[in-house]
């Protein structure tokens, strides 16, 4: 070829690219700080269970909130069409709660309103996440994934006293 080949980039555009990259790096840093320094994390992979038997044996046969030691709780939650088991839990303010959530039928979602607890519930998988709630009040947990006709009616309450 005889024509001159060059990557012509307008100086204004060059600066725009720099600015864009800088902006994205800044956002990524903010996210990493929140995630890895402050400990606001997303769920990671847990154990796998058999959705056909999970509601019959083991902790989800008798789902609910249990005190491990003072101020430390675990909550086994079973999602099914179209309710959460249990429907209501009560903990003292300042408690650390570890949720173990699974489904015995279709996919569901679990979102504890006004907190960062928000997970997908996939049959065969256990969604595990730990939170600490300091503020007393009634926190609703709702199903956030379409799970059938009465999906809108699927919710429960966590009472923090």
């Amino acid at each position, binding site marked *: 070829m005889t024509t001159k080949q060059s990557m012509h980039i307008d100086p204004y555009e060059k600066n725009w690219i720099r600015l864009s990259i800088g902006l994205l790096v800044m956002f990524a840093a903010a996210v990493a700080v929140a995630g890895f320094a402050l400990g606001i994390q997303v769920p990671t992979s847990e154990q796998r269970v058999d959705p056909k038997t999970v509601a019959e044996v083991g902790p989800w046969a008798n789902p609910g909130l249990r005190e*491990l030691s003072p101020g430390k709780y675990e909550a086994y939650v079973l999602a099914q069409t179209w309710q959460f088991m249990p429907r209501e839990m009560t903990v003292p303010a300042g408690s650390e709660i570890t949720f173990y959530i699974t489904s015995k039928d279709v996919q569901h979602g679990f979102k504890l309103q006004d907190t960062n607890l928000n997970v997908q519930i996939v049959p065969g998988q256990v969604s595990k996440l730990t939170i600490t709630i300091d503020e007393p009040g009634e926190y609703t947990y709702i199903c956030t994934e379409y799970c059938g006709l009465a999906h809108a009616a699927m919710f429960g309450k966590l009472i923090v006293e």
Partner: protein
Amino acid sequence: MKRFLLYGFYTLLIVVVGGAFAFKVFQPVQVLPRIRLAPGFALIDQAGERLTNEDLRGQFTLYNFGYTRCGSACDLSNQSMREMQDKLDELALGDIPVTLVTISFDPEYDTPERLQAYAESVGADPARWRFATIADPSLLKYVIGGGFETYYEAQDDGSFAFDPAFVLVDGWGIIRGEYRYQTMASDAERIMRHLEVLADEAINSKGSASVAYEAAHYFLCYAP
């Protein structure tokens, strides 16, 4: 020359990325996750001897939790412990000893004598499987509930509601496996496989080979 360097750089890049990729896919090394530190404790065992977490350093320890008046609720858990106790010799663990510890959460009733009798009734080999507890119930709650994160609670009729969980701890006192509920494989099978994986790491991760094990942790090459 510049071109040569560039190709060298590309080759290196391909080797590194390809190597990392192959490592993750073929998983020549598998490990268990380092979950968190196991709690410290000082228990009294069935022979009336002190058993502390420090005594169990340098060996693998498998904990489960129960009580002697348990009845059939503990059968499954005890059977699994018994099965593992009997098969320990068949596992490739090098010279690393394994201790099974059952911690009772019923100290009021479970005196060393009763633990001794219970141990005999479930076929425990005293050299391998120890039964122990702490007299102070609130301390016990912090160890089992707070530290091992395993639930138990006294009921009105004197029995206990509890989770038949297992916890696997390595020689540094780090929890490497928690078996809280029935997963796709049976607990005993998984735990024995995991013991071998732990032993493999403890024996082989020395010198330059330790890089491979650290990589396995980094790439989450966890044994299923």
